[in-house]
């Protein structure tokens, strides 16, 4: 039977493999290969230059290091504070206080609607003239605290960070699901032993959901490493490069028709991603079997 099925197996795998080839494999090879070329549209060039693009990125490009720093800082903030926020809520909700289901669903809404919609909403919330934030400050008599939040050099970075940092619905949903799937008798046993609710959370529940938290940290890192639309719509990376990250910088470089250089940024994104994943896996012992 096995013999006769070879054709079918190939046929069943072929579409996936072809699409993988077109959208992942070929582009991946191209990213690495052309990052070694001076490959531009104007003037039309295609010339092997070795690692010059990378040397230029790290030593001559005044924009690149700040952009790399932004990316790394954002990943760190997201992996630590954002996931912590979602986890704390999940730990509150699994005890099923009044309205926990409502909170779970509501908190998920900003994660379900598109990032570009959230970005548009924040663009308006932060608007210097009619935005809700400045209106609120005015209403409570703190007019001197008003800012042009997204375009003031001092406030742009935190303002952009807030557009995704506070929406941890994804993390909450996943950690909560894991919490709810644990055996209630373990919790009951701990209670009978006289453990306080905080002790149960810390000593019993946390170890049980640690791997799920690890998963959400990985998701948070991936999400942040790929973040583009919200920055593009709100600040476009400005003022200067104070809110630009690697994908945004890559995009502007592609738009300037400098493909070789853009792809060397792509290589850096892949490397940053690889390093981050390795670190998180180590930290949460994700590779160990139970």
């Amino acid at each position, binding site marked *: 039977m096995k013999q006769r099925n*070879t*054709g*079918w197996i*190939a*046929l069943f795998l*072929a*579409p996936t493999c*072809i699409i993988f080839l077109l959208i992942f494999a070929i582009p991946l090879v191209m990213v690495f290969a052309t990052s070694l070329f001076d490959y531009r*549209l*104007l*003037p*039309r060039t295609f010339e092997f230059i070795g690692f010059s693009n990378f040397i230029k990125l790290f030593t001559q490009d*005044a924009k690149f290091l700040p952009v790399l720093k932004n990316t790394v800082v954002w990943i760190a903030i997201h992996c630590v504070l954002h996931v912590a926020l979602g986890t704390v809520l999940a730990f509150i909700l699994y005890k099923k206080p009044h309205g926990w289901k409502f909170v779970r669903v509501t908190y998920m809404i900003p994660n379900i609607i598109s990032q570009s919609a959230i970005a548009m909403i924040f663009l308006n919330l932060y*608007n*210097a*003239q009619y935005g809700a934030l400045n209106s609120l400050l005015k209403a409570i008599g703190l007019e001197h605290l008003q800012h*042009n939040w*997204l*375009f*003031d*050099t*001092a406030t*742009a970075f935190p303002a952009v960070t807030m557009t995704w940092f506070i929406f941890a619905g994804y993390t909450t949903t996943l950690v909560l699901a894991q919490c709810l799937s644990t055996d209630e008798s373990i919790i009951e046993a701990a209670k009978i032993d006289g453990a306080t609710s905080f002790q149960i959370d810390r000593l019993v529940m946390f170890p049980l959901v640690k791997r799920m938290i690890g998963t959400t940290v990985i998701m948070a890192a991936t999400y942040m490493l790929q973040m583009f639309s919200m920055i593009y719509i709100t*600040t*476009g*990376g*400005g*003022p*200067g*490069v*104070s809110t*630009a990250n690697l994908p945004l910088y890559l995009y*502007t470089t592609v*738009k*300037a*028709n*400098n493909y070789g250089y853009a792809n060397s940024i792509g290589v850096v994104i892949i490397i940053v991603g690889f390093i981050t994943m390795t670190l998180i896996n180590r930290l949460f012992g994700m590779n160990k079997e139970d």
Partner: protein
Amino acid sequence: MKRMFACLLSLAMLLALIGCGGSSSQPSNSEDSASSKEIVIKYPTFQVGANTAAPVVAKLVEEFNAEYAGKYRIEVEDVPGDANYADKIKVMISSGELPPVVYGGGYKLLDLALQADLVVDLTDAVNADPEWKAMYNETWESTDCRDGRIYASSSEGQLIGYYYNKELFNQAGIKPAETWEEFFDNCDRLLAAGITPLAMDTADGAWCTQLLLGAMIAGSGDEGLEFMNTSYPTNYNIPSVVDAIAKIQKLYQTCTTLDANGGAYENAANNFFSENVAMICNGPWMIGDFSDTSKTTEGFSDKVGVATYPGGFVYDAPIEGMFVTKQSDPALEEAGIAMVKFFTSPKAQQTALETQGMVPAGATVEITQTALDAFPLLADFLEQASVCEKRGNTLTGLMVPGLEDTFSAELPNLASGADTPEQFCQVLTDFATANPVT
């Protein structure tokens, strides 16, 4: 193994089929002529919808299709947003397949297409027609010609001054300034009267701000004026530019609206339309908007005055015109040439002038009385512009490709004071030096 191969082959064919399905909706046109006599010119354009030139293009397409009925036909493809359009054309340049006719606009598309060797030489076609040839003067040559050959044909001129709100000017007791000292004095007096003087922006290339900046540079002396007439400058750290940037920084901080920093042209215009500010820099295509009640209130157009810049400067450069691209079917190239000729003819430019108040590119195009009556503000402006001795291109028009984005991204730092004028200019210089046009 054979079976597997057969399966793979059939799958490859399926995929090829999908591929073909996709590419048939692409503007590749050569095949159409085989089946019918009529040649279809697919014309992607951003001049649709809310775009000022949309009615003109629609009218010209209709006229062209009527005149060449049975021979050529234009099919318009909507690509709203001029930056989108430029992106699309750039992609098509890199893939080597352009629509038969491309409108260069303000995006240096002609140079990009020439680099890829995709542009049809129009020299012979233009020389064969005296009326067409007569339009090519010195300014046209810098825009539409390269190395003595003609590649494009312009239809729209770019004569730009600024608009002011007469009512607000009266309240402050001022008149349009003749010198830059007077201009800044005017701003102070407007501020004293509780009026915000200027509409400015930073996003999308900061159109209004760069017009103001360029005019200041040009008005600063010979060095500045020369700068405003040099294509693709690489050094922005010259005194005339740094000084003008310093003034712009001050204007951002004292003389404009809260939303200028981060705002785009549309926000600036909105401030002018709703009488929040007294002045805005922009070209004659804006005149139609002053009486558009979806953008402003009834009777606003009566309050608007127009002026050229202090020191007798006005922006004057034709916008890069239409060009024909190389096609596998020579008949399609012929059709493209016919279209370009039709769309940029003096008659077409007159149509644009009379319907939308667009300034013609050709000096030989007569400014008709009909147009002057329909757009009194334009008549006023053309008269003022005719006596201006200093002229130049816009800053955006001069910049190396891509610098607009850096300019736009860095302006907020200038506005908030995080950059000194010297630092700001250094950022521009760095980008321009790293991405020169050779």
